[in-house]
């Protein structure tokens, strides 16, 4: 148990509904620095809504979001990104006709707010930095290929790499292993987590990820929050939460498939 828990982002009493559908009901979560927080819950439970509110895509009907003492509730997505919150997407959001390297370069420039009319977009220093990160994701060999030629798993990794190159303080990963075959899920998460750890400079990167696969949850999460019907129904370590009866009823099902050989 950490005695020193610095809160990076504090979501306070978030409410959000779409007509009669309650997507978030009084959700309050404090995300601590360096945490590996996993959000679980069945589809429609409110995980993605939460992520969308944090990243500015959706505005809560009530409640606030505070990042490092600043109220970011009303900010636009790009303003929130500039303050150190990056996200990856469930369906990879990439520039399909551009090369992998160009995608990374674009991400790098965006994160640095560089939009010069004259300086080349492909300066050696920037290219090298992109290659480094691509290397950590084992994507270097694809650098000059257009994204649309690449398989889904590779696109997923690129999507995450693009979010990471900006050296965010808080990285939100929306189902990082969805669409990845069962055998490769651990490999993918290992690659992602290693890349995050190796890149982290003075401060650790706080990671929040949405997941459905409980094996991944157990292995990588330091803390788990379970959603149901827009509410938080459990919050604690993975073993605590996964043993919770409500969680078992509403999220994981009463019988868990822990018998799968894990690597």
């Amino acid at each position, binding site marked *: 148990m950490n005695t020193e828990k610095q809160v990076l982002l504090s979501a306070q009493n978030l409410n959000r509904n779409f007509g009669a559908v309650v997507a978030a009901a009084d959700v309050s979560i404090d995300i601590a620095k360096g945490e590996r927080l996993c959000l679980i819950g069945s589809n429609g439970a409110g995980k993605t809504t939460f992520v969308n509110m944090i*990243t500015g895509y959706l505005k809560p009907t009530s409640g606030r979001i505070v990042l490092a003492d600043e109220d970011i509730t009303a900010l*636009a*997505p*790009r303003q929130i*990104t*500039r303050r150190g919150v*990056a*996200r990856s*997407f469930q369906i990879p*959001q*990439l*520039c*399909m*006709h*551009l090369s992998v390297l*160009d*995608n990374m*370069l*674009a*991400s790098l*420039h*965006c*994160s640095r*707010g*560089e*939009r*010069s*009319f*004259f*300086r*080349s*977009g*492909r300066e050696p220093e920037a290219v090298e930095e992109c290659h480094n990160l691509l290397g950590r994701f084992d994507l270097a060999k694809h650098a000059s290929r257009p994204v649309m030629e690449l398989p889904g798993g590779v696109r997923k990794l690129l999507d995450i790499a*693009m*979010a990471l190159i*900006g050296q965010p303080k808080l990285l939100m990963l929306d189902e990082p292993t969805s669409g990845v075959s069962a055998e490769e899920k651990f490999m993918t998460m290992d690659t992602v987590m290693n890349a995050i750890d190796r890149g982290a400079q003075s401060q650790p990167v706080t990671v929040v990820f949405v997941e459905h696969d409980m094996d991944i949850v157990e292995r990588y999460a330091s803390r788990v929050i379970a959603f149901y019907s827009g509410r938080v129904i459990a919050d604690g370590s993975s073993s605590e939460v996964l043993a919770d009866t409500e969680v078992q009823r509403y999220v994981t099902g009463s019988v868990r498939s822990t018998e799968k050989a894990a690597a």
Partner: protein
Amino acid sequence: MIATSSKRVFLVCALVFLLLLGLSLVLPKWLIFLATIALANGLVSLGIVLMMRSGVVPFGQGLVFAAGGYTAALLFNRLGITDALALSLMGGIAAFLIALPFASLLARYRGIFFAMLTLALSMVLYGILMKTNALGGSDGFNVTRPTLFGFRPEAAQSTFLLWGVTAGISCLMAGLARIYCDSTRGLLSLAVRENELRVEYLGMSVVNIVAWNYLLAAFLGGLGGALSVLALGHIDPNFSYWTTSGEFVFVAILAGYQSVIAVFVGSLLLELVRSFSSAYFPNTWQLALGIFLLLVIRFLPDGLGSQMYRLLPKRPTKD
């Protein structure tokens, strides 16, 4: 600090400029005149290409074309400013200023609506120009021979002076456009074209990128308009009519968004087809253009520029 690749670009531009000047000594006058018009129009299409690189197609560049043209013509006639370079620059700036209030609004539109809003604005200007007698109304008005750094050309020399100025400005703009396309902003423009949602989520303002592309295109359009007026010796509200805007788009589509030179080649092709057809087959040149456009859209969706890269293997990496 100017990067080596930028130096190389300007070197190529200078060489091309000298080549074009040299050509004017051997080519017939009618061709030089045609080429002057082609380059001037090409500047407008170049601006459209810059916008296409961030995913929008304007159908109303007549607005900035006319703004530049009328500015140059008015300065010439009312204020006695006759220097070709000065007039061109003023035309560009005037067009930039006219576009300025609309830039960030326009940058929030896409697809058909972007096209229609630019179209509407150009037609508003057309309507105003048609009914403003002080500006010549529907007939427009004439300008006479421009000067250059104080030198007043004879009638025979004027063609060369205009060619020199137009070629020089075009080469310079082509070089700057190349550098811009290779720049950070140029890369981000492509990213916006592909996935603007992602660009926003990466922390960059898409509206800023699109708006600036629009403003640069406006400046280019104004330059083109001013140079056109000087070459034609005449201006009228048709500069802002939708069919004029349509032709600029035609050339931009023909050229594609990958090569700067292709834009000017395409513009020249259009002028040549128009000239020859008007002379020999006056009722079929639009038919020919239409078929040509269809063929390009069908078989060369990336424009001629994509083909030009196949012919020049030693080009630096295309954007």
